[in-house]
């Protein structure tokens, strides 16, 4: 069966706009990653950029594997810590009245990642607010005594920024499920003899899984592909993949541009795989 003409007409504007913009951008991107650079008159397609990345050669390719590792580290750490914290926060909040903490969590969502990054920066640099207070309290004597928490090699500042944003998001996601569904089940479980830990393990956890797993995958995918936060709070080396991609893309060395584009497409591909997997899982579990 085919959709009716009316349906097609109504879907047309949205689908056309998205297809044209997205399709064109991905096609141009793909072409450039394959060495199609009209600025320098290069029209031969080749896989040099991708080969450079995999073999760790070239301007950007040298850093590819290190950046991949770094990106995986910040994405995994942020996602796991967010998911675990959100799970416990949601369990705690589940029994409390609705309005206030929903507002509180939404309030947090209002802060763009960029602003949240600025906040972490102001708070945690070696001459930041916390360092100043620590000095006033006599805990440290000079900025160098304060631990390096932002623009550090391990991406701690980046991870902290994401935690601040993703914990409320995942908490809301879990709470929405818990608040509409958990009360009766938890009551029944307690009634049948389950203690608090058993209720958490046997009821809460399986109940929120359908929200928590895809939600966490979504968070992972987002962090893996995001540029702003690692660009603001990261160091020159190691750089997150998106930072490496963008900086190579705008590199005066035109060879680096193809590699930058290639990295960006690889990131997009990974993200897409994860999200499709998450959605499939969500659908499977109803």
């Amino acid at each position: 069966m085919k959709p009716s003409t009316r349906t097609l007409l109504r879907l047309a504007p949205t689908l056309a706009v998205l297809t044209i913009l997205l399709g064109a951008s991905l096609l141009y991107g793909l072409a450039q990653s394959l060495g199609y650079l009209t600025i320098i008159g290069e029209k031969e397609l080749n896989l040099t950029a991708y080969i450079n990345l995999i073999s760790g050669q070239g301007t950007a390719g040298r850093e590819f594997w290190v950046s991949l590792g770094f990106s995986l580290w910040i994405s995994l750490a942020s996602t796991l810590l967010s998911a675990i914290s959100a799970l416990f926060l949601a369990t705690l909040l589940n029994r409390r009245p609705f309005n206030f903490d929903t507002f509180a969590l939404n309030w947090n969502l209002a802060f763009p990642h960029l602003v949240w990054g600025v906040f972490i920066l102001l708070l945690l640099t070696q001459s930041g607010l916390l360092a100043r207070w620590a000095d006033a309290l006599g805990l440290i004597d000079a900025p160098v005594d304060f631990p390096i928490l932002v623009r550090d090699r391990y991406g701690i500042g980046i991870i902290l920024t994401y935690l601040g944003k993703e914990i409320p998001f995942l908490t809301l996601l879990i709470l929405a499920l818990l608040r509409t569904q958990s009360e009766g089940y938890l009551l029944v479980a307690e009634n049948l003899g389950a203690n608090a830990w058993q209720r958490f393990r046997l009821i809460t956890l399986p109940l929120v899984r359908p929200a928590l797993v895809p939600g966490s995958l979504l968070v992972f995918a987002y962090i893996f592909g995001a540029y702003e936060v690692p660009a603001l709070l990261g160091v020159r080396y190691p750089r997150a993949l998106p930072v490496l991609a963008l900086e190579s893309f705008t590199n005066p060395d035109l060879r680096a541009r193809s590699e930058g584009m290639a990295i960006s497409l690889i990131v997009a591909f990974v993200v897409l795989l994860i999200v499709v997997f998450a959605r499939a899982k969500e659908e499977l579990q109803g």
Partner: protein
Amino acid sequence: MTTLTFTHITKSYPKRDTPVLDDFLLDVQSGELVSLLGPSGIGKSTLLKLIAGIERPDAGDIRFDGESVLSTAPNQREAVFMFQKAYLFPFLNVGENIAFGLKVKGFSTKERLIKVAEMLDLIGLPGIEKRPPNELSGGEQQRVALARSLVIRPKVLLLDEPFNSLDRPVRLSLQEAVRNIQRELGITTLLVTHDLDEAMAMSDRMALMMGGKVAAIDKPQRLFQKPPCVETAKFVGVKLFIEGVASSGTLVSAEWGKLKIEDEQKVGRSIFAIRPEHIRIQKEKCENALAGVVKNCVYRGTQIEMKIALGERVLRAHIPAKNEIMPAEEPVQVILPKEHLFAVN
């Protein structure tokens, strides 16, 4: 085998002026099924929550076999619920659902399998261990919920309007099944319901709750035929109350005149009542007859419900369905047989 005792239970909620339960007293015998009837908001469900330990009474005590359970944690009380919704855990199959209580109590996998199979036989759904709960019908889900509650052999079973959301035929068969299983296992049971038919069909004793107390408690038949007070009488469907002065076999009422009564003990100001099924309608005059005209008749299959006008007043009578349906404005005699007039408080 457990007896259940409530002594002077009081429970208030911050947002209500009057206590939901006020000096509530009740004794339930071992293996007995007592139903709690009454309009909504009267504290029936609150009582079950107090037994299960979900809420605490402000005063009074709850005892299983004479021992207070107030200090026992809710998950150690062994007073299990069955709700209107089955609450079968959606992420577990039927067998795992039933085994839940056994699992948290540390029974081995083998013991769990055996007991689950036994319970499935008992509820008449053998062999469905592996099915997911959402594939079951509403009635089957409730049966599984019952099995899940009973497999741990609780001391007390708490039925909180468990048949409400089911269609009538399913409801009736489930009522019967629950009643049979409850008898077979001899589990002390409280049933909360607002459905009189259900209470009568299932209970050993019915308790009518009013004003935070038990207003009347008795075997279903006695409570239905001879309710002790006006509120109870209204609840079990009595529509006609006659206020008057009784003396040696007669009741003199300003409204209804002079009526013969059988109750010789009753003397002085009193209220008498009669069930609508016991009022007779006929053409001929006789003892305790009042003249009236038919307002309308509604044929109900099992009976005919009539409205009769007696001057300004309207009276309802239910007569056997085999009678003729009378046209409106037909003059008739309304008979209030003296053997069916009973005194209420």
